[in-house]
């Protein structure tokens, strides 16, 4: 489970940032909430993944004051939205094909 979660971490990070900008720990909390606590990744993998997405131009990161403390906040960019949309399409195609394969003969 952990490996497959890690393989889709980029798409999940883009998805939780779709509604609006969040700082690192808020991203981790949003991942937990959306997955009902099932995606239990080491939280230390999230920060470099956010930086890698920023390097790719999918996120823009900036330091801002949130709750009286300086935090690095990430927002989805235009190309991040495109990438998320492509990831969703790929995942739907894959999951449809997997469902059909696992369902077997009707």
């Amino acid at each position, binding site marked *: 489970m952990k490996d497959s979660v890690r393989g889709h971490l980029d798409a999940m990070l883009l998805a939780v940032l779709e509604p609006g900008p969040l700082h690192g720990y808020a991203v*981790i909390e949003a991942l937990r909430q959306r997955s009902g606590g099932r995606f239990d990744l080491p939280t*230390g993998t999230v*920060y470099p993944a956010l930086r890698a997405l920023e390097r790719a131009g999918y996120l823009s990161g900036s330091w801002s004051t949130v709750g009286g403390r300086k*935090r*690095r906040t990430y927002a989805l960019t235009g190309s991040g939205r495109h990438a998320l949309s492509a990831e969703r399409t790929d995942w739907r195609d894959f999951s449809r094909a997997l469902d059909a394969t696992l369902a077997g003969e009707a």
Partner: protein
Amino acid sequence: MSTLVDDLRARLRGPRGVRRELLREVEDGLRDAAEAYENAGLPPADAARKAADEFGDPAALAPLYQAELDASRGRRAALLIALAYPTLTLAWDALWRYTSVGDGAAPDGVATVAGALDTGSYGAAIVAAATIPLYGRASAATARRLTVAVGLLGWLSLVLIMATSIWMAQASGDHAVRDFESNVPSMLVVGLTVTASLAIAGTATLALSRWWEPRAAR
């Protein structure tokens, strides 16, 4: 929690500012996590321990963080090479064109070698500039390889340019060197060349050091 951050810090090599920012973000996240557990009713020590446990093993995580430092270091070196060589080539061209330096007849071969030097400098700058977008979606291993390659490019180009320049100065004879010493613009261009060469040597050495430094130190 601070032990965990110190452990991670000791494993990372790269630009100090980027490393400080990365670790500050980690520290903030750990503090946020500990606060959330405290608010949920855990005693402070337990909350901090739980936040650190959830973070993961610094030894296993360090390569992910190191990739960002490698990318930053490599991109800086590539940008410097991409900007410095065209600037120097244009500065030398302006010197030959608009001052009396080099007005004497150049010996056979010097003009050809000077032309090749210009082409080589622009070529190195273009190759360096072309690596910058490659960092975008580069994996940790690719970022490291690219950075080592940029370091190699920096040193190889520098050695070739220096060797060629020394040969041209020798082939042009003592009078050409005296021309330089008595001319303010030529000394400015020489100063600019020495400064840029030292900067390229420094940044290329740091980039190249990712070859022999451990993948994520320690």
